[in-house]
């Protein structure tokens, strides 16, 4: 292989930084004028960053676990996205100032008069919530550092022992990840409506995180490949698998979303249906329909053709599309609690795209500064480069 490390352009840092600053200004303004709404916006941003960071970490672990070779050329890019994970600890702090605005179950007087919430209060209370959040964040961060460190050490001497170590780490991490992502989904998104419950909710959020992580990796890989930052031996065929995985996880998402909906629809019990009815009220109806088309039907039809998965242009379109669809998905999960009756999108929500895009650009630039963009001495690398359909 002929990979030589090239520094990413500084414009990435500059553009990202400017977007981030503007986004933070909008967020601060909305904290001043509409504090409750600002916390919901912040939760939206936080969950999206969590999707990218932790979803990428899960993808890295998945590659080690199943021994995939095609994804080895892209693994370092996924690792760079996963470097958002440690940042989540800092980003979580503002959330704790907004617990009262975000979560109804933190209102102790309301809980006392509500038998449903009272019976759930042994799980949904601030102390246990904090403990769970810390547990999840520390778990993810720890495994990110362990896996990424081994992977980087291998760049120096190419010792296959590091691959073995990472396989062991991934084997331990995967079941823990399943538990922790379920906890995170229930705590951050499902408990916004503490009366509602869905046992499939963790899987639903997980399917979204993987799509977001895959889409981010695909977009970055295609961009870097076009800019000549990656090895010249890396062919279009390797990208085919990224496109296929997005396609597959998109269908998986639709399957889970529909399973959740169908059971609620069938049972028709008021304690479950109100969550869906909230998302069918007024203009929320259009958001729900848009989610169906935007997240599943249109990408499904776009990606059904084989050539769309090896064509760089359509890969870029689909990955940006899916990132936007995941943002819409999160919006659909979070905001009906705040905007009862009608969906809303104001200047406050502009902070989301600005901060998310800016932050990811900055993280990518900073994190890629010290690393190779490809795991140069990974023993599986040559097999990954040789991958042909």
């Amino acid at each position, binding site marked *: 292989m002929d990979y030589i490390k090239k520094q990413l352009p500084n414009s990435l840092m500059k553009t990202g930084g400017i977007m981030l600053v503007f986004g933070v200004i909008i967020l601060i303004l909305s904290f001043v004028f509409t504090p409750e709404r600002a916390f919901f916006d912040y939760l939206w941003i936080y969950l999206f960053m969590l999707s990218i960071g932790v979803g990428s970490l899960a993808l890295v672990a998945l590659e080690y676990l199943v021994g995939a070779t095609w994804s080895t050329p892209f693994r370092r890019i996924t690792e760079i996205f996963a470097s958002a994970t440690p940042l989540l600890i800092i980003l979580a702090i503002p959330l704790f100032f907004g617990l009262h605005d975000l979560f109804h179950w933190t209102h102790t007087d309301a809980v006392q008069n509500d038998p449903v919430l009272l019976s759930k209060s042994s799980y949904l209370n601030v102390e246990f919530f904090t403990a769970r959040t810390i547990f999840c964040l520390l778990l993810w961060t720890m495994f990110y550092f362990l896996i990424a460190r081994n992977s980087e050490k291998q760049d120096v001497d190419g010792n296959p022992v590091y691959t073995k170590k990472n396989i062991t780490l991934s084997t331990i991490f995967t079941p823990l990840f399943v538990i922790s992502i379920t906890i995170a989904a229930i705590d951050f998104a499902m408990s916004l409506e503490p009366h509602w419950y869905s046992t499939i909710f963790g899987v639903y959020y997980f399917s979204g995180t993987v799509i977001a992580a895959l889409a981010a990796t695909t977009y970055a890989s295609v961009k870097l490949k076009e800019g000549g930052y990656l090895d010249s031996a890396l062919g279009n065929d390797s990208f085919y698998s990224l496109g296929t995985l997005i396609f597959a996880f998109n269908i998986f998402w639709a399957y889970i979303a529909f399973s959740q*909906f169908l059971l609620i629809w069938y049972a028709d019990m008021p304690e479950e249906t109100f969550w869906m009815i909230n998302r069918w009220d007024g203009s929320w109806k259009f958001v729900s329909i848009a989610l169906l088309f935007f997240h599943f039907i249109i990408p499904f039809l776009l990606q059904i053709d084989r*050539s769309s998965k090896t064509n760089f242009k359509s890969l870029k379109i689909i990955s940006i599309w899916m990132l936007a669809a995941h943002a819409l998905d999160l919006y659909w999960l979070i905001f009906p609690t705040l905007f009862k009756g009608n969906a809303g999108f104001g200047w406050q929500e502009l902070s989301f795209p600005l901060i998310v895009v800016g932050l990811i650009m900055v993280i990518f630039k900073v994190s890629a500064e010290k690393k190779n963009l490809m795991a140069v001495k990974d023993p599986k690398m040559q097999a990954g480069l040789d*991958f042909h359909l």
Partner: protein
Amino acid sequence: MFGKILKKLDEKLLKSEPRTGKLFAVAALFDKPDDIIHAAEKVTERGYKNYDVLTPYPLHGMDGAMKLKPSKIGWVAFIAGISGTTLAFLMMWWMSGIDYKIIFGGKPYFNLPPSIPIMFELTVLISAIVLVNSLILIYMKLPANANPLMDTEFIKRVTSDKFGIYIQADDPKFNVDEVRGLFQSLGSSSVSNINEAEYEKGDSKNPLLSLKFMGVVAGTCVVTVLVSYFVLQVLLFMPPFSWMHEQPKLLPQGKSNFFKDNWSMRRPVEGTVARGFIPYEFKGMPDSMVVPTPNPLPVTKKVLEVGKKRFDTYCSPCHGYFGKGDSRLRGQFPAPPSLHTEKVRNWKDANIYHVITNGQNVMPSYESSISRDDRWAIIHYIRVLQRSQNAPDSDLESK
């Protein structure tokens, strides 16, 4: 032992060599995946069109080596899948919305959400069936019953441990010696000619119609049926579950040793009447003994509707829907007299009640089938029927 029998059958029924048909292809075996990819590249370079590569497992890079265009089989699957979706949608819509309407959970008759799993399943099923059939159609070269490659040493090797390539004789550039030379120069471990599957001279009729082939198919069917019958009905036979039937409880009119009188049921305490079982005081007495009591029910729409329903269920089979005695059972049962005669019209309600409760002539007692109130409701309805057939002029004038 089983393998030996199969081998003997194989030799007896499916002669593999020597074949006398015209040359179908020249085939070559290679030992390593890299060799076969190299061979495929070279064969493509020479400009051969009708050739194919067979490997025991999919080889990455073969598409490029053979310069294959994207397969059109995807479109077959797509169209089959779409027809499956449409078919399932129409099926669900017709069945639940039109043909057999059942209210479920207060929902509309036809709903999209529960149809989606069916639509999904049928999409998969139809596309799978169509794909498998197209595969058989293409690979078996219907109407032939087998691809000429079948039962050759070549196909046996490429399905286990070797990589094979063959060039068909109908290729425009085909020349036996050239092709053999090409394969040998590429390092093939064995090159062979494959002839069409004709074992005797002039054996050119459609192999699907050959007596031997049809005999084997029919024999296989018979053996399969017999074996599955034996396995399911004799070898693995289990009596159907009877656990629901055998319960530790006393059945009515059954014997029990629990009580002294050996009855499983208890008789009511003397002098009491069970709830809802008001005895009829004129039971078994002639008409003349009946003391007329008025109909206890008011004439309301609700009562008449109950009466009509009960009349249509219990009375109309013999008396007819309008009480004219034109029963549906005519010819099998003696038809009862009309309910519109002078006699019946002048009967008091209590008399009709007496007949329903006691029975009359051939008519049995309906005491146990129709509840007390329903009997009185039927009487109101009979009065409605009678009025409808014998309306006085005043009825017309008052409207």
